[in-house]
């Protein structure tokens, strides 16, 4: 269809037109076509993100509760003051950061081990690939239920299988206290998303040249040295992309907490707090302020991670 315009039109040069002008005509046409083709996608993406975000900025300056819409009142930055001086906000932010840091670190290690194994395994590649996609394909809500039942005080197998561990008795109530509940939530998160991490790392691993590893081996480098000096540095781009994606994803953790504790035992995350303010309490003003803060946190986080790894993301993705 549209390809005719894009095909280099070198076949029939039109006489009388200087080559340069023709080139720029073609470039213009290509430019226009390109914009036309991306327009629908860009518009849809903006409708659901940019416009609501502007709306959130606007709403966040009002005291506005849907149950009493007539009391809508302009309060300027008041909502931000309310949020930032509230202990609950900081508790939830702390929880979120903690979950993010721990799960991503654990996933990075386990994911890398998995990637190494998958890289080595020659037999049964299909089996392992299929299995690793099962957690990825499982709905987060379902995985949260599976793990909730796993840690359940009544029916869970953790309590009966690991009775011999000093701090796990058959009547350990995992969801009765802050740390065990956080632990259960993190286990569920790690189970579900490690496969994604390991697949990205596997892709990075397969791009490290075997020759370099071989050369290091010949030079007498130990396995450990080869890992730290050759393999990992050459995978920096892949590791960075994996960490960036997973960290931002973990930062918006919601499903697991919603299903497993509903925020009980102070396990609430920033996303959960925002959801609760807006949907359950219908505090659109206050909730919008939280939304804006959440958005800013994610921006800051992305910026920090990219700076930390000093990798041009576009380059890492082959954008040149």
């Amino acid at each position: 269809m549209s390809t005719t315009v894009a095909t280099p039109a070198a076949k029939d040069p039109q006489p009388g037109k200087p080559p340069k002008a023709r080139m720029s005509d073609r470039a213009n046409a290509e430019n226009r076509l390109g914009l036309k083709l991306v327009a629908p996608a860009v518009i849809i993406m903006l409708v659901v993100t940019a416009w609501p975000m502007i709306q959130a900025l606007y709403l966040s300056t009002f005291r506005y509760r849907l149950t009493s819409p007539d009391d809508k009142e302009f309060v300027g930055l008041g909502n931000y003051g309310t949020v930032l001086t509230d202990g609950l906000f900081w508790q939830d932010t702390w929880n979120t950061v903690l979950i993010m840091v721990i799960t991503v670190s654990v996933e990075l290690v386990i994911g890398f081990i998995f990637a190494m194994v998958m890289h080595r395994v020659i037999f049964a590649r299909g089996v392992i690939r299929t299995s690793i996609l099962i957690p990825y394909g499982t709905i987060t809500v379902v995985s949260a239920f599976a793990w909730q039942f796993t840690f359940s005080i009544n029916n869970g197998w953790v309590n009966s299988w690991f009775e011999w561990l000093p701090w796990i008795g058959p009547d350990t109530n995992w969801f009765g206290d802050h740390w065990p509940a956080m632990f259960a939530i993190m286990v569920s998160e790690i189970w579900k998303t490690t496969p994604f991490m390991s697949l990205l790392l596997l892709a990075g691993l397969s791009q490290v040249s075997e020759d370099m590893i071989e050369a290091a081996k010949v030079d007498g480098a130990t396995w450990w040295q080869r890992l730290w000096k050759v393999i990992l540095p050459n995978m920096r781009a892949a590791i960075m992309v994996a960490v960036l994606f997973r960290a931002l994803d973990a930062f918006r953790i919601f499903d697991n907490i919603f299903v497993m504790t509903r925020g009980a035992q102070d396990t609430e995350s920033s996303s959960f707090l925002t959801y609760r303010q807006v949907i359950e309490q219908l505090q659109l003003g206050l909730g919008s302020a939280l939304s804006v803060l959440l958005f800013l946190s994610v921006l800051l986080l992305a910026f920090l991670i990219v700076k930390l790894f000093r990798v041009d993301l576009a380059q890492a993705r082959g954008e040149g």
Partner: protein
Amino acid sequence: MKNKNAIGTWGGFVLILVWCLLPVAWIISLSFKSPDETAAGSPQFLPQDATLQNYKDILDNPDFLDALRNSFGISLIATVLSVIFATLAAYAIARLEFKGKRLVLSLALAIAMFPVVALVGPLFDMWRTFGLFNTWLGLIIPYMSFTLPLAIWTLTAFFREIPWEMEQAAQVDGATSWQAFRKVIVPLAAPGVFTAAILTFFFAWNEFVLAISLTSTTSSRTVPAQLSYFVGPDPFNPPYGQLATASVVVTVPIIVIVLLFQRKIVAGLTSGAVKG
């Protein structure tokens, strides 16, 4: 040395299998346990008296069936639309020179990282105004927006690999440009498009935040949202068996897709994300 490596690989292999399958096995096992067994506090892994009662109950539950229908419909429509628009965009990005190319890719990336919850409030407000709250369309539109970035990135990576000169070669051989496109480019692009579709479908099938925030009844509530409301008459003693069964029922289609297309999914996930 060689032996040690082999043992490590084998051990790792088994570890990965256990890791991936244990929770799934657990939920399948639960789905065959009778309510007596799940309520009485019996921690043994396998059911003592396997029963199909839970499956009968779940498949007779109209709320669950509605949710299943909603999930299928919404995910499918969102996938088709999202992939069509993503294909157009990715084709332009991979093939054409135009201003703002990088901007589109950066925008897509930014949206992929967007905290969905941050949009729930304003969307809730907007959708109520436009009458989109608690409708299929009210979920399809945001699902499209949030799957477009992944689809665009994946497809762009795929389209870059296509040798576009073949199209010209076909034209030189006498094919019209439409024929060249249809006979040469479409078959080469199809696997990428298909992969993007699977990933998009996964996202829509899995999505939870928007599903519980922008719906209020079973006329549009999707499976993940419905599951979270599925507590039974006694909130302190949820129907474990039935919940597990419902979980199995909604996981099965995904597992089947995974089994059939694992190669494509892996290629799509990694080519979209890492391309050095």
